């Protein structure tokens, strides 16, 4: 499983229901350690793609392997190795920060969950508020806690679904620093990969090593960021994303 060089290999993957094609023969390959930014207009299938790759949805046809696990055959095995950061916190607001993390850690079967949770609370700088219920947290604090929750089982691949939505500039700054920290932190031991959907083009571009544009469920552009001229990409982006708005 660790031998495969690519984090995500998708071939002619479609998501069809009735006459509606959410994804239409999507193919791409993402190496381990990469950061993929997915762009596209509303309804292009970005969230569907992310939900399929993170085992929350099943593809209709085509083949898809994530971290060497077949998405159709063995979604359960993969779940141990992926984390998901969404614009929704995926937390219980009436439980405390610590309880939420402990709950997740125990479900994943993390050894010595208390210690792991303390570590993570320190990383996201919420140690002082660990016993407070999440309902009392600001949006930025909740988002930091949801990062900790996504990392509790030390995933190799992290999905980010619009992580910036609803964050104020200060929180965005902290989030960026945190993201940078988790990218560097374990990149020496192993290659942690990221896959992000965002409406923020600049953020998506800055972080990415690979770029993907979806349009009506089809991949219209997929490449390494270094291979693409930035101004070319911006033009492409505005044409494609602007189309969905009009």
């Amino acid at each position, binding site marked *: 499983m660790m031998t495969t060089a690519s984090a995500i290999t998708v071939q002619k993957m479609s998501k069809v229901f009735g006459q509606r094609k959410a994804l239409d023969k999507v193919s791409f390959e993402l190496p381990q350690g990469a950061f993929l930014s997915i762009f596209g207009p509303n309804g292009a299938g970005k969230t569907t793609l992310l939900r399929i790759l993170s085992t*929350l949805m099943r593809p209709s046809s085509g083949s898809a392997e994530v971290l060497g696990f077949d998405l159709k055959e063995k979604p359960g095995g993969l779940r141990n190795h992926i984390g*998901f950061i969404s614009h929704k916190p*995926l937390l219980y607001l*009436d439980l405390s920060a610590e309880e939420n993390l402990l709950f997740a850690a125990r*479900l*994943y079967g*993390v*050894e010595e969950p208390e210690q792991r949770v303390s570590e993570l609370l320190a990383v996201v700088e919420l140690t002082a508020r660990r016993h407070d219920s999440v309902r009392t947290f600001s949006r930025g604090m909740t988002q930091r806690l949801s990062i900790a929750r996504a990392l509790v089982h030390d995933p190799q691949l992290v999905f980010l679904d619009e992580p910036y939505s609803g964050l104020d500039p200060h929180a965005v700054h902290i989030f960026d620093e945190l993201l940078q920290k988790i990218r560097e932190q374990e990149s020496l031991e192993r290659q942690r990969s990221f896959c992000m959907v965002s409406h923020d083009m600049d953020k998506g571009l800055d972080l990415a090593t690979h770029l993907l544009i979806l349009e009506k469920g089809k991949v219209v552009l997929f490449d390494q960021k270094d291979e693409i001229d930035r101004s070319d990409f911006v033009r492409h982006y505005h044409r494609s994303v602007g189309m969905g708005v009009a």
Partner: protein
Amino acid sequence: MSTKKRVSTFEHYKILLGKDLRREFRTREMLSTMGIYTLLVLVIFGIALMQTSAKIDIVQMSGGLFWALIVFTSLLGLNRSFAYEKEDGALEGVLLVPLDRSVIFLSKLTANFLLLIIVEAIAIPLFFLFFLSGVEMQPSLPLALAPLLVGTIGIAGVGTLLATITINTRGKDMLLALLFIPLVFPLLYACVSATTLAITGGDMLTGAYTAGLTLAIGYDVVMILVSWLLYDFVVSA
């Protein structure tokens, strides 16, 4: 660096159930709403029965009335039991964990069952106080506890499956009632019969009471088994 161990299904069940109970005892959201609602329904029953005089009638009616109370109260609680799972995507967080998803059903069923039993423990004495205090009790009365238990398990089971469905629909509260009441009708029918027989006592007791209780148990077994088998589809959709 942390390492992971394999978590057994029973372990998952305990963690999920622990989370539900911890959350409930902290907020007392379901218990307080269901508790107050019980009082309100009892008041309505009081108005409805105000003009009746004969005590015999109330003995025969009380089984049915009590089950009406349970059904309406449980609807309220079942709706809440998934609202907070959906609200901030917490359920999605659980679905991302490698676990047998029918465990979510079993843990939620248990949590709902326990909360309903607590509410019933409050409702029963109040019901007796308001409506049956002047009536001489039959020695068979304790037998009413068996259908109560069986009925509550069935309500929690069917209700948990349906609440998982209706949480993703428009007009969820209303829809749960629409789906739930016809489905639990047979269970109610059996439970009301057995409960009433236990309260009224008499010759009818042995055969008819056992029939009602056995059928209620049969309903529970079939419906919970089917719900458990179908739950993965529902919660993953």
